[in-house]
């Protein structure tokens, strides 16, 4: 019976039901988006290391070094000498050392110089090595060949056989086009890591590019390091960083990225607070919407009471109506969430190469709608009390 009363009231007030549910949907979708993007981006960024344990670079910020060498964001903190690379490569604790030379780009997509071993030997996640799309292969050292990350290739519309001139600097503004002409020989299969956003060429290609400083032709931007054992990371951390020399050893990568999120945690808090405020306003809109219609509904309530409905029945019907609006809005909130989260995920992928999966299970999918439904239910209590108190005889009396 209660459900029938709720259903018919919702049907009778269909327009205000939809408008109110729409405001709940916006609030619910916003809260879920903020929550999912916050939790998932923290987890995904902290887990993104492209298969490496540490980064060696010039003296400076570890975070800047990781952002530059792993995420291909930020500028390089400086160069290191080839001898430093050789030294770390030969260290008994180091399993693999992949040099990087950075600083050029093409149409805004970063170009990185590295060695063939990156795509031949390295597992970017345990058990997964880089693979080339059909018809592609790795570049050869000493050649003017390039391998393109899947996302960059897709955005640039590049396929094997495409040629291009690297641009000096990290953006198209300023700088100049190098005269070297590179040919794309391979497009990587998607890895859902920042590697997808980079154009890869042989190391010496960047080092000796026309217009680059010939004195720095052997220098490197960073070295990506795989260790034989995690304990070695602490040892190298002590040896290199504590020595206060010209190098920085960024280890462990996940903790350093987590620092970034700690630094911007205030932003998360502001967004979450905003989402909760929107939630409270939405619940308030349910209260106001039903409360404002109570005068018009009083007669219907009095009639129901005259037909034998108990006070608690009409109270339950109003609270239930508010809860159903909340539940309906929360359900629609998943549509809003789908749109917002997909947009945010696309932006993050474009900017950082990190792929979020918004529909991956998150507890907010359960407690978010429950909280919204609960808030709306609470919002329904005030008009429900008004319904509970409707004086039957006075209200039902014919209007003179």
């Amino acid at each position: 019976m209660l459900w029938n009363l709720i259903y018919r009231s919702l049907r009778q007030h269909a327009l205000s039901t939809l408008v109110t549910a729409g405001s709940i949907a916006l609030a619910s979708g916003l809260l879920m988006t903020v929550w999912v993007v916050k939790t998932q981006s923290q987890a995904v960024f902290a887990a993104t290391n492209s298969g490496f344990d540490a980064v060696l670079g010039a003296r400076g910020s570890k975070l800047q070094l990781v952002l530059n060498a792993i995420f291909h964001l930020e500028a390089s903190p400086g160069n290191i000498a080839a001898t430093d690379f050789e030294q770390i490569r030969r260290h008994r604790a180091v399993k693999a050392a992949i040099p990087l030379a950075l600083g050029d780009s093409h149409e805004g997509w970063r170009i990185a110089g590295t060695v063939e071993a990156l795509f031949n030997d390295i597992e970017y996640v345990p058990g997964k090595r880089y693979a080339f799309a059909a018809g592609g292969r790795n570049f050869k050292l000493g050649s003017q060949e390039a391998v393109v990350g899947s996302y960059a290739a897709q955005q640039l519309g590049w396929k094997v056989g495409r040629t291009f001139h690297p641009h000096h600097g990290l953006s198209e503004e300023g700088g100049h086009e190098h005269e070297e002409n590179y040919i794309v020989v391979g497009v990587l299969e998607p890895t859902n890591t920042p590697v997808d956003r980079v154009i890869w060429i042989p190391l010496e290609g960047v080092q000796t590019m026309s217009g680059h400083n010939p004195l720095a032709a052997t220098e490197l931007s960073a070295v990506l390091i795989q260790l034989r054992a995690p304990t070695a990371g602490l040892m190298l951390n002590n040896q290199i960083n504590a020595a206060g020399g010209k190098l920085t050893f960024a280890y462990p990568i996940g903790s350093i990225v987590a620092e970034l999120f700690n630094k911007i945690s205030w932003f998360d808090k502001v967004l979450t607070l905003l989402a909760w405020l929107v939630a409270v306003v939405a619940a308030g809109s349910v209260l106001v919407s039903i409360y404002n219609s109570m005068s018009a509904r009083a007669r219907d309530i009095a009639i129901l009471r005259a037909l034998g409905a108990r006070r608690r029945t009409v109270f339950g019907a109003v609270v239930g109506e508010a809860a159903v609006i909340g539940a309906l809005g929360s359900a629609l909130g998943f549509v809003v969430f789908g749109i917002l989260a997909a947009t945010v995920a696309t932006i993050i992928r474009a900017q950082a190469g990190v792929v979020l999966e918004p529909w991956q299970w998150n507890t907010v999918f359960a407690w978010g709608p429950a909280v919204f439904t609960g808030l709306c239910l609470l919002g329904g209590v005030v008009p429900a009390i008004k319904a509970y108190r409707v004086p039957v005889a006075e209200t039902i009396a014919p209007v003179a």
Partner: protein
Amino acid sequence: MSLLQVTHLLKSYPAPGGGVQQVVNVPAFALGAGEQLALRGESGSGKTTFLNLIAGILAPDSGSIRLADQELTTLGEARRDRLRAGTIGYIFQTFNLLQGHTVLENVLLGMAFGPGANRPRAAALLQRMGLADKHDHYPRQLSTGQQQRVAVARALANQPKLVLADEPTGNLDRRNAREALQLIRETCRESGAALLLVSHDERVLAQFEQMQDFTHFNRAPTGAIA
């Protein structure tokens, strides 16, 4: 044994100028099962209050109302609601149909809080009222005469022992009033329900074999309260 027995029933309201105004003062009143009785009463004579007291919508100041072997005045509000839902059918002057509900839904509401919704019975009642093709209509889509017939069907939906009718023809033209009254009396007779009807319309009152003047057994001074 009477279906309804009222003794020493008193009900007062706060008076506009302070103090209280007695509206109902009925020393004794009774109605047998299946009986049909018309009460004559002018506006403000307290007859609607009297019906509301019998229906358990209002609680009296004192006195006794015995309905179907249950003492109403000792029951809590929830139990009065339950008794009303299962025992009483109420027909209002202004029909009091729920505008957001269809004709069929309005009739179903008449039984929902008592014996429970029974679609076949609701459909049969509407057929009896000549509204078999109006199930999905909303009250606003019906004539006033049709609306009153829906109200009658709703009042009979819970198979009541007592039907209370408060000026049921007050909003109808002469022809519709005659038809509605005939329908109410016939259907109450068919279902075995007692009928207590109040009206100030002499044409209505003249239809009844039993008629009493409300002011004869209500000793409260007449005022401007329904």
